[in-house]
Protein backbone atom coordinates (compact mmCIF):
# COMPACT_ATOMS: atom_id res chain seq x y z
CA UNK A 1 0.00 0.00 0.00
CA UNK A 2 2.83 2.32 1.04
CA UNK A 3 4.75 1.45 -2.16
CA UNK A 4 1.64 2.13 -4.23
CA UNK A 5 1.25 5.57 -2.67
CA UNK A 6 4.90 6.41 -3.36
CA UNK A 7 4.61 5.34 -7.02
CA UNK A 8 1.38 7.36 -7.33
CA UNK A 9 3.18 10.43 -5.95
CA UNK A 10 6.10 9.81 -8.35
CA UNK A 11 3.73 9.47 -11.27
CA UNK A 12 1.91 12.66 -10.29
CA UNK A 13 5.28 14.39 -9.96
CA UNK A 14 6.25 13.29 -13.48
CA UNK A 15 2.97 14.51 -14.89
CA UNK A 16 3.28 17.86 -13.12
CA UNK A 17 6.86 18.22 -14.39
CA UNK A 18 5.90 17.23 -17.92
CA UNK A 19 2.94 19.56 -18.05
CA UNK A 20 4.95 22.39 -16.45
CA UNK A 21 7.40 21.82 -19.28
CA UNK A 22 4.57 22.29 -21.73
CA UNK A 23 3.44 25.55 -20.14
CA UNK A 24 7.06 26.76 -20.11
CA UNK A 25 7.36 25.71 -23.73
CA UNK A 26 4.23 27.62 -24.70
CA UNK A 27 5.47 30.70 -22.86
CA UNK A 28 8.89 30.41 -24.54
CA UNK A 29 7.39 30.20 -28.02
CA UNK A 30 4.96 33.06 -27.40
CA UNK A 31 7.61 35.23 -25.74
CA UNK A 32 10.15 34.35 -28.44
CA UNK A 33 7.76 35.18 -31.23
CA UNK A 34 6.65 38.41 -29.56
CA UNK A 35 10.30 39.37 -29.18
CA UNK A 36 10.90 38.44 -32.80
CA UNK A 37 8.13 40.77 -33.96
CA UNK A 38 9.48 43.67 -31.92
CA UNK A 39 13.06 43.03 -32.93
CA UNK A 40 12.45 42.40 -36.63
CA UNK A 41 13.16 45.92 -37.89
CA UNK A 42 16.51 45.99 -36.11
CA UNK A 43 17.99 42.92 -37.78
CA UNK A 44 21.37 44.58 -38.20
CA UNK A 45 21.72 44.97 -34.43
CA UNK A 46 21.79 41.22 -33.96
CA UNK A 47 24.85 39.17 -34.98
CA UNK A 48 24.30 37.01 -38.08
CA UNK A 49 24.08 33.84 -35.98
CA UNK A 50 21.33 35.24 -33.69
CA UNK A 51 18.37 34.40 -35.90
CA UNK A 52 19.58 30.93 -36.96
CA UNK A 53 20.14 30.13 -33.27
CA UNK A 54 16.64 31.41 -32.36
CA UNK A 55 15.29 29.35 -35.25
CA UNK A 56 17.07 26.22 -34.02
CA UNK A 57 15.66 26.67 -30.49
CA UNK A 58 12.14 27.36 -31.76
CA UNK A 59 12.26 24.30 -34.04
CA UNK A 60 13.55 22.17 -31.18
CA UNK A 61 10.47 23.07 -29.11
CA UNK A 62 8.15 22.70 -32.10
CA UNK A 63 9.62 19.22 -32.64
CA UNK A 64 8.84 18.28 -29.03
CA UNK A 65 5.14 19.18 -29.37
CA UNK A 66 4.75 17.93 -32.95
CA UNK A 67 5.07 14.25 -32.02
CA UNK A 68 2.56 14.01 -29.13
CA UNK A 69 0.06 16.30 -30.88
CA UNK A 70 0.10 14.10 -33.98
CA UNK A 71 0.84 16.89 -36.48
CA UNK A 72 3.88 17.17 -38.69
CA UNK A 73 6.53 19.75 -37.87
CA UNK A 74 6.07 21.40 -41.26
CA UNK A 75 2.55 22.57 -40.56
CA UNK A 76 3.73 24.33 -37.38
CA UNK A 77 6.96 25.60 -38.92
CA UNK A 78 5.70 27.65 -41.89
CA UNK A 79 3.10 29.84 -40.15
CA UNK A 80 5.17 30.37 -36.99
CA UNK A 81 8.53 31.04 -38.63
CA UNK A 82 6.89 32.85 -41.57
CA UNK A 83 4.93 35.08 -39.18
CA UNK A 84 7.51 35.91 -36.55
CA UNK A 85 11.00 35.64 -38.06
CA UNK A 86 12.53 38.16 -40.47
CA UNK A 87 13.03 35.61 -43.27
CA UNK A 88 11.10 36.04 -46.51
CA UNK A 89 8.22 33.60 -46.95
CA UNK A 90 9.90 32.10 -50.06
CA UNK A 91 12.81 30.82 -47.94
CA UNK A 92 10.52 29.79 -45.07
CA UNK A 93 8.46 27.61 -47.40
CA UNK A 94 11.60 26.05 -48.88
CA UNK A 95 12.85 25.25 -45.37
CA UNK A 96 9.37 24.06 -44.30
CA UNK A 97 9.34 21.45 -47.04
CA UNK A 98 12.75 20.20 -45.95
CA UNK A 99 11.66 20.05 -42.31
CA UNK A 100 8.64 17.95 -43.29
CA UNK A 101 10.73 15.85 -45.69
CA UNK A 102 13.49 15.11 -43.16
CA UNK A 103 10.95 14.13 -40.48
CA UNK A 104 9.14 11.84 -42.94
CA UNK A 105 12.42 10.28 -44.10
CA UNK A 106 13.50 9.62 -40.51
CA UNK A 107 10.23 7.82 -39.70
CA UNK A 108 9.55 6.18 -43.10
CA UNK A 109 11.86 3.14 -42.99
CA UNK A 110 10.68 1.84 -39.60
CA UNK A 111 7.02 2.47 -40.50
CA UNK A 112 7.46 0.42 -43.69
CA UNK A 113 9.25 -2.39 -41.85
CA UNK A 114 6.46 -2.88 -39.29
CA UNK A 115 3.65 -2.52 -41.81
CA UNK A 116 2.27 0.75 -40.42
CA UNK A 117 3.08 2.33 -43.79
CA UNK A 118 1.97 0.41 -46.86
CA UNK A 119 3.72 0.78 -50.20
CA UNK A 120 0.75 -0.42 -52.29
CA UNK A 121 -1.62 1.99 -50.57
CA UNK A 122 0.85 4.88 -50.72
CA UNK A 123 2.23 4.74 -54.27
CA UNK A 124 -0.88 5.63 -56.31
CA UNK A 125 -1.79 8.45 -53.90
CA UNK A 126 1.79 9.74 -53.69
CA UNK A 127 2.15 9.75 -57.48
CA UNK A 128 -0.76 12.15 -57.97
CA UNK A 129 0.12 14.25 -54.92
CA UNK A 130 3.77 14.56 -56.08
CA UNK A 131 2.73 15.80 -59.50
CA UNK A 132 0.33 18.35 -58.04
CA UNK A 133 2.87 19.47 -55.41
CA UNK A 134 5.14 20.54 -58.29
CA UNK A 135 2.32 22.69 -59.67
CA UNK A 136 1.67 24.10 -56.17
CA UNK A 137 5.35 24.96 -55.67
CA UNK A 138 5.61 26.66 -59.07
CA UNK A 139 2.46 28.72 -58.54
CA UNK A 140 3.46 29.58 -54.95
CA UNK A 141 6.81 30.93 -56.10
CA UNK A 142 5.18 33.00 -58.83
CA UNK A 143 2.52 34.62 -56.63
CA UNK A 144 3.09 37.77 -54.53
CA UNK A 145 4.12 36.92 -50.95
CA UNK A 146 1.21 38.89 -49.44
CA UNK A 147 -1.30 36.78 -51.37
CA UNK A 148 0.39 33.56 -50.25
CA UNK A 149 0.37 34.88 -46.64
CA UNK A 150 -3.38 35.49 -46.77
CA UNK A 151 -4.04 32.05 -48.30
CA UNK A 152 -1.72 30.49 -45.73
CA UNK A 153 -3.56 32.22 -42.88
CA UNK A 154 -6.93 31.01 -44.15
CA UNK A 155 -5.58 27.47 -44.61
CA UNK A 156 -4.05 27.38 -41.13
CA UNK A 157 -7.33 28.59 -39.58
CA UNK A 158 -9.07 25.82 -41.56
CA UNK A 159 -6.59 23.30 -40.14
CA UNK A 160 -7.38 24.58 -36.62
CA UNK A 161 -11.07 23.91 -37.23
CA UNK A 162 -10.25 20.48 -38.70
CA UNK A 163 -8.03 19.57 -35.74
CA UNK A 164 -10.59 20.74 -33.20
CA UNK A 165 -13.57 19.00 -34.76
CA UNK A 166 -12.43 16.01 -36.85
CA UNK A 167 -13.26 12.61 -35.49
CA UNK A 168 -11.02 9.58 -35.80
CA UNK A 169 -11.85 5.96 -36.30
CA UNK A 170 -9.37 3.40 -34.96
CA UNK A 171 -10.68 0.60 -37.20
CA UNK A 172 -13.17 1.91 -39.81
CA UNK A 173 -15.62 -0.57 -41.23
CA UNK A 174 -15.03 -1.25 -44.93
CA UNK A 175 -17.79 -3.60 -46.03
CA UNK A 176 -16.51 -4.00 -49.59
CA UNK A 177 -13.42 -2.60 -51.33
CA UNK A 178 -14.10 -0.56 -54.46
CA UNK A 179 -13.04 -1.87 -57.89
CA UNK A 180 -9.96 0.34 -58.14
CA UNK A 181 -8.55 -0.56 -54.73
CA UNK A 182 -9.22 -4.23 -55.49
CA UNK A 183 -7.42 -3.94 -58.84
CA UNK A 184 -4.44 -2.23 -57.15
CA UNK A 185 -4.49 -4.73 -54.23
CA UNK A 186 -4.64 -1.88 -51.73
CA UNK A 187 -5.06 -4.05 -48.66
CA UNK A 188 -2.82 -5.51 -45.99
CA UNK A 189 -2.24 -6.83 -42.51
CA UNK A 190 -0.57 -5.03 -39.63
CA UNK A 191 0.41 -6.09 -36.15
CA UNK A 192 -1.37 -3.97 -33.54
CA UNK A 193 0.93 -4.05 -30.50
CA UNK A 194 -1.73 -2.53 -28.19
CA UNK A 195 -4.09 -5.44 -28.91
CA UNK A 196 -1.38 -8.01 -29.54
CA UNK A 197 -2.97 -9.29 -32.74
CA UNK A 198 -2.79 -9.10 -36.53
CA UNK A 199 -5.38 -6.86 -38.12
CA UNK A 200 -6.28 -7.05 -41.78
CA UNK A 201 -7.52 -3.95 -43.56
CA UNK A 202 -8.77 -2.81 -46.96
CA UNK A 203 -9.96 0.50 -48.39
CA UNK A 204 -12.86 1.94 -50.35
CA UNK A 205 -13.79 5.22 -52.11
CA UNK A 206 -10.37 5.17 -53.82
CA UNK A 207 -11.24 7.43 -56.79
CA UNK A 208 -12.40 10.23 -54.45
CA UNK A 209 -9.33 9.66 -52.27
CA UNK A 210 -7.05 10.03 -55.30
CA UNK A 211 -8.81 13.25 -56.28
CA UNK A 212 -8.40 14.71 -52.79
CA UNK A 213 -4.70 13.80 -52.78
CA UNK A 214 -4.27 15.94 -55.91
CA UNK A 215 -5.52 18.91 -53.86
CA UNK A 216 -3.45 17.96 -50.81
CA UNK A 217 -0.26 17.75 -52.88
CA UNK A 218 -0.99 21.13 -54.40
CA UNK A 219 -1.35 22.76 -50.95
CA UNK A 220 1.84 21.05 -49.73
CA UNK A 221 3.82 22.55 -52.61
CA UNK A 222 2.11 25.93 -52.43
CA UNK A 223 2.71 26.53 -48.72
CA UNK A 224 5.78 24.34 -48.16
CA UNK A 225 4.01 22.39 -45.47
CA UNK A 226 3.83 18.69 -44.84
CA UNK A 227 0.30 17.52 -45.40
CA UNK A 228 -0.25 14.95 -42.66
CA UNK A 229 -3.09 17.06 -41.28
CA UNK A 230 -5.03 16.32 -44.51
CA UNK A 231 -3.58 12.91 -45.47
CA UNK A 232 -4.67 11.18 -42.28
CA UNK A 233 -8.38 12.18 -42.37
CA UNK A 234 -8.62 11.21 -46.07
CA UNK A 235 -6.93 7.83 -45.53
CA UNK A 236 -8.76 7.10 -42.28
CA UNK A 237 -12.22 8.67 -42.47
CA UNK A 238 -12.78 8.61 -46.24
CA UNK A 239 -10.89 5.55 -47.48
CA UNK A 240 -11.32 3.48 -44.32
CA UNK A 241 -7.70 2.56 -43.52
CA UNK A 242 -7.07 1.91 -39.80
CA UNK A 243 -5.86 5.00 -37.92
CA UNK A 244 -2.32 3.70 -37.32
CA UNK A 245 -1.92 2.61 -40.96
CA UNK A 246 -3.27 6.00 -42.07
CA UNK A 247 -0.79 7.91 -39.91
CA UNK A 248 2.15 5.71 -40.99
CA UNK A 249 1.26 5.73 -44.68
CA UNK A 250 0.69 9.50 -44.56
CA UNK A 251 4.21 10.00 -43.25
CA UNK A 252 5.63 7.77 -45.99
CA UNK A 253 3.65 9.58 -48.71
CA UNK A 254 5.31 12.82 -47.59
CA UNK A 255 8.75 11.40 -48.48
CA UNK A 256 7.68 11.51 -52.14
CA UNK A 257 5.38 14.54 -52.17
CA UNK A 258 7.69 16.88 -50.28
CA UNK A 259 10.78 15.80 -52.21
CA UNK A 260 9.26 16.68 -55.58
CA UNK A 261 8.16 20.11 -54.29
CA UNK A 262 11.54 20.59 -52.57
CA UNK A 263 13.32 20.15 -55.92
CA UNK A 264 11.34 23.09 -57.34
CA UNK A 265 12.30 25.33 -54.41
CA UNK A 266 15.91 24.17 -54.63
CA UNK A 267 16.18 24.80 -58.38
CA UNK A 268 14.56 28.20 -58.00
CA UNK A 269 17.13 29.19 -55.35
CA UNK A 270 14.54 29.35 -52.55
CA UNK A 271 16.47 27.08 -50.19
CA UNK A 272 18.92 28.92 -47.93
CA UNK A 273 21.13 26.53 -45.97
CA UNK A 274 21.33 29.04 -43.10
CA UNK A 275 17.55 28.80 -42.62
CA UNK A 276 16.88 25.21 -43.69
CA UNK A 277 19.60 23.30 -41.85
CA UNK A 278 19.12 24.69 -38.28
CA UNK A 279 15.38 24.12 -38.77
CA UNK A 280 15.80 20.50 -39.87
CA UNK A 281 18.27 19.66 -37.08
CA UNK A 282 16.28 21.49 -34.38
CA UNK A 283 13.02 19.84 -35.41
CA UNK A 284 14.55 16.36 -35.56
CA UNK A 285 16.22 16.69 -32.15
CA UNK A 286 12.94 17.99 -30.71
CA UNK A 287 10.98 15.14 -32.27
CA UNK A 288 13.49 12.69 -30.78
CA UNK A 289 12.82 14.13 -27.30
CA UNK A 290 9.08 14.40 -27.99
CA UNK A 291 8.88 10.70 -28.88
CA UNK A 292 10.53 9.83 -25.56
CA UNK A 293 8.20 12.13 -23.60
CA UNK A 294 5.20 10.55 -25.31
CA UNK A 295 4.28 8.39 -22.32
CA UNK A 296 4.37 11.20 -19.76
CA UNK A 297 2.97 14.13 -21.73
CA UNK A 298 -0.80 14.42 -21.82
CA UNK A 299 -1.68 14.24 -25.51
CA UNK A 300 -4.88 16.25 -24.96
CA UNK A 301 -2.92 19.10 -23.31
CA UNK A 302 -0.30 19.10 -26.08
CA UNK A 303 -3.02 19.05 -28.73
CA UNK A 304 -4.74 22.08 -27.15
CA UNK A 305 -1.40 23.87 -26.99
CA UNK A 306 -0.71 23.15 -30.66
CA UNK A 307 -4.21 24.26 -31.71
CA UNK A 308 -3.68 27.53 -29.78
CA UNK A 309 -0.27 28.04 -31.42
CA UNK A 310 -1.73 27.40 -34.87
CA UNK A 311 -4.68 29.73 -34.21
CA UNK A 312 -2.27 32.50 -33.20
CA UNK A 313 0.06 31.84 -36.14
CA UNK A 314 -2.84 31.57 -38.61
CA UNK A 315 -4.27 34.92 -37.49
CA UNK A 316 -0.80 36.45 -37.68
CA UNK A 317 -0.29 35.15 -41.26
CA UNK A 318 -3.70 36.45 -42.32
CA UNK A 319 -3.22 39.89 -40.75
CA UNK A 320 0.35 40.14 -42.04
CA UNK A 321 -0.81 39.26 -45.56
CA UNK A 322 -3.57 41.88 -45.35
CA UNK A 323 -1.04 44.47 -44.14
CA UNK A 324 -2.84 44.96 -40.81
CA UNK A 325 -0.20 43.46 -38.49
CA UNK A 326 3.25 43.87 -40.08
Amino acid at each position, binding site marked *: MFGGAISAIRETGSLVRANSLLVLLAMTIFAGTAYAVEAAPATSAMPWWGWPLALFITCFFLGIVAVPSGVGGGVLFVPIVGGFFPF*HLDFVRGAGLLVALASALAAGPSLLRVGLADLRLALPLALLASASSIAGAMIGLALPASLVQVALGITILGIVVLMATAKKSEFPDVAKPDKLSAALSMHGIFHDASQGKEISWRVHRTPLGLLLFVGIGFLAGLFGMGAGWANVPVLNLLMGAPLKVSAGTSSFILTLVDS*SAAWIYLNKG*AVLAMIAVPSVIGMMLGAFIGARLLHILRASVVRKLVISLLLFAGLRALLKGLGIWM
Partner: protein
Amino acid sequence: MNDSHISIEQQRYATLLSWGSRSGLALLIASFLAYVLGWMPAHVPLEQLPNLWNLPVGEYLEQTNTPTGWAWLTMTDRGDFASLVGIAWLSGCSLVCLLAVIPIYARRKDRIFVMLCMLALAVQLLAASGMLRTGGH
Protein backbone atom coordinates in the same frame (compact mmCIF):
# COMPACT_ATOMS: atom_id res chain seq x y z
CA MET B 1 7.42 -8.75 -34.30
CA ASN B 2 6.26 -11.02 -37.10
CA ASP B 3 7.12 -9.31 -40.38
CA SER B 4 6.21 -12.23 -42.66
CA HIS B 5 3.35 -10.17 -44.10
CA ILE B 6 5.67 -7.32 -45.09
CA SER B 7 6.36 -7.67 -48.80
CA ILE B 8 9.91 -8.05 -50.12
CA GLU B 9 9.65 -4.84 -52.12
CA GLN B 10 8.52 -2.93 -49.03
CA GLN B 11 11.46 -4.30 -47.02
CA ARG B 12 13.89 -3.38 -49.79
CA TYR B 13 12.41 0.11 -50.07
CA ALA B 14 12.71 0.57 -46.28
CA THR B 15 16.36 -0.54 -46.21
CA LEU B 16 17.40 1.79 -49.02
CA LEU B 17 15.38 4.70 -47.62
CA SER B 18 17.03 4.21 -44.25
CA TRP B 19 20.52 4.32 -45.78
CA GLY B 20 19.65 7.27 -47.96
CA SER B 21 18.14 9.38 -45.21
CA ARG B 22 20.88 8.64 -42.66
CA SER B 23 23.71 9.37 -45.05
CA GLY B 24 21.91 12.49 -46.29
CA LEU B 25 21.50 13.83 -42.77
CA ALA B 26 25.15 13.12 -41.95
CA LEU B 27 26.22 14.93 -45.12
CA LEU B 28 23.91 17.84 -44.34
CA ILE B 29 25.24 18.31 -40.81
CA ALA B 30 28.91 17.93 -41.80
CA SER B 31 28.72 20.40 -44.69
CA PHE B 32 26.72 22.89 -42.62
CA LEU B 33 29.28 22.77 -39.79
CA ALA B 34 32.06 23.41 -42.31
CA TYR B 35 30.04 26.39 -43.59
CA VAL B 36 29.17 28.09 -40.28
CA LEU B 37 32.52 27.38 -38.63
CA GLY B 38 34.29 29.05 -41.53
CA TRP B 39 36.17 25.94 -42.68
CA MET B 40 34.80 26.63 -46.17
CA PRO B 41 34.50 30.09 -47.74
CA ALA B 42 30.94 31.35 -48.27
CA HIS B 43 29.56 32.72 -51.54
CA VAL B 44 27.43 35.21 -49.56
CA PRO B 45 29.36 36.45 -46.49
CA LEU B 46 27.64 35.32 -43.31
CA GLU B 47 27.54 38.87 -41.89
CA GLN B 48 25.53 40.05 -44.92
CA LEU B 49 22.82 37.40 -44.62
CA PRO B 50 20.58 39.34 -42.16
CA ASN B 51 20.24 42.11 -44.78
CA LEU B 52 19.36 39.66 -47.54
CA TRP B 53 17.17 36.84 -46.17
CA ASN B 54 14.15 39.15 -45.92
CA LEU B 55 14.16 39.71 -49.70
CA PRO B 56 11.98 37.77 -52.17
CA VAL B 57 13.97 34.98 -53.77
CA GLY B 58 14.29 36.79 -57.13
CA GLU B 59 15.84 39.88 -55.54
CA TYR B 60 18.09 37.76 -53.30
CA LEU B 61 19.45 35.90 -56.33
CA GLU B 62 20.03 39.14 -58.20
CA GLN B 63 21.79 40.92 -55.35
CA THR B 64 24.01 37.96 -54.47
CA ASN B 65 24.66 36.81 -58.04
CA THR B 66 23.48 33.34 -57.09
CA PRO B 67 22.69 30.91 -59.93
CA THR B 68 19.50 28.87 -60.24
CA GLY B 69 18.94 25.30 -61.46
CA TRP B 70 21.86 22.92 -61.07
CA ALA B 71 24.55 25.58 -61.55
CA TRP B 72 25.22 25.54 -57.80
CA LEU B 73 26.88 22.13 -58.26
CA THR B 74 29.88 23.86 -59.84
CA MET B 75 30.26 26.02 -56.71
CA THR B 76 30.32 23.37 -53.98
CA ASP B 77 33.72 24.61 -52.83
CA ARG B 78 31.69 27.38 -51.08
CA GLY B 79 30.05 26.43 -47.79
CA ASP B 80 26.57 27.74 -48.62
CA PHE B 81 26.42 25.56 -51.77
CA ALA B 82 28.15 22.57 -50.18
CA SER B 83 25.25 22.43 -47.70
CA LEU B 84 22.86 22.04 -50.63
CA VAL B 85 24.47 18.69 -51.50
CA GLY B 86 22.94 17.12 -48.37
CA ILE B 87 19.59 18.73 -49.15
CA ALA B 88 19.65 17.41 -52.73
CA TRP B 89 20.65 13.97 -51.43
CA LEU B 90 17.68 13.89 -49.04
CA SER B 91 15.36 15.09 -51.80
CA GLY B 92 16.66 12.47 -54.20
CA CYS B 93 17.03 9.36 -52.05
CA SER B 94 13.53 8.11 -52.95
CA LEU B 95 14.65 7.80 -56.59
CA VAL B 96 16.94 4.89 -55.76
CA CYS B 97 14.22 3.19 -53.69
CA LEU B 98 11.68 3.43 -56.53
CA LEU B 99 14.22 2.14 -59.01
CA ALA B 100 15.10 -0.80 -56.76
CA VAL B 101 11.54 -2.13 -56.38
CA ILE B 102 10.70 -2.09 -60.11
CA PRO B 103 12.48 -5.43 -60.82
CA ILE B 104 10.54 -7.11 -57.99
CA TYR B 105 7.21 -5.96 -59.41
CA ALA B 106 8.39 -6.89 -62.92
CA ARG B 107 9.32 -10.47 -61.86
CA ARG B 108 5.85 -10.83 -60.35
CA LYS B 109 4.34 -9.49 -63.61
CA ASP B 110 2.65 -6.73 -61.60
CA ARG B 111 2.53 -4.38 -64.59
CA ILE B 112 0.39 -1.75 -62.89
CA PHE B 113 2.93 -1.19 -60.11
CA VAL B 114 5.86 -1.26 -62.55
CA MET B 115 4.07 1.54 -64.38
CA LEU B 116 3.25 3.43 -61.15
CA CYS B 117 6.89 3.28 -60.01
CA MET B 118 8.11 4.46 -63.40
CA LEU B 119 5.63 7.34 -63.40
CA ALA B 120 6.64 8.30 -59.84
CA LEU B 121 10.28 8.23 -60.97
CA ALA B 122 9.44 10.40 -63.98
CA VAL B 123 7.66 12.96 -61.77
CA GLN B 124 10.62 13.12 -59.36
CA LEU B 125 13.12 13.43 -62.21
CA LEU B 126 11.06 16.14 -63.91
CA ALA B 127 10.96 18.11 -60.64
CA ALA B 128 14.69 17.63 -60.11
CA SER B 129 15.65 18.43 -63.70
CA GLY B 130 15.35 22.19 -63.32
CA MET B 131 13.52 22.31 -66.65
CA LEU B 132 10.33 23.60 -65.05
CA ARG B 133 10.47 27.37 -64.98
CA THR B 134 8.36 29.63 -62.79
CA GLY B 135 7.79 33.33 -63.02
CA GLY B 136 9.46 35.25 -60.21
CA HIS B 137 7.70 37.81 -58.09
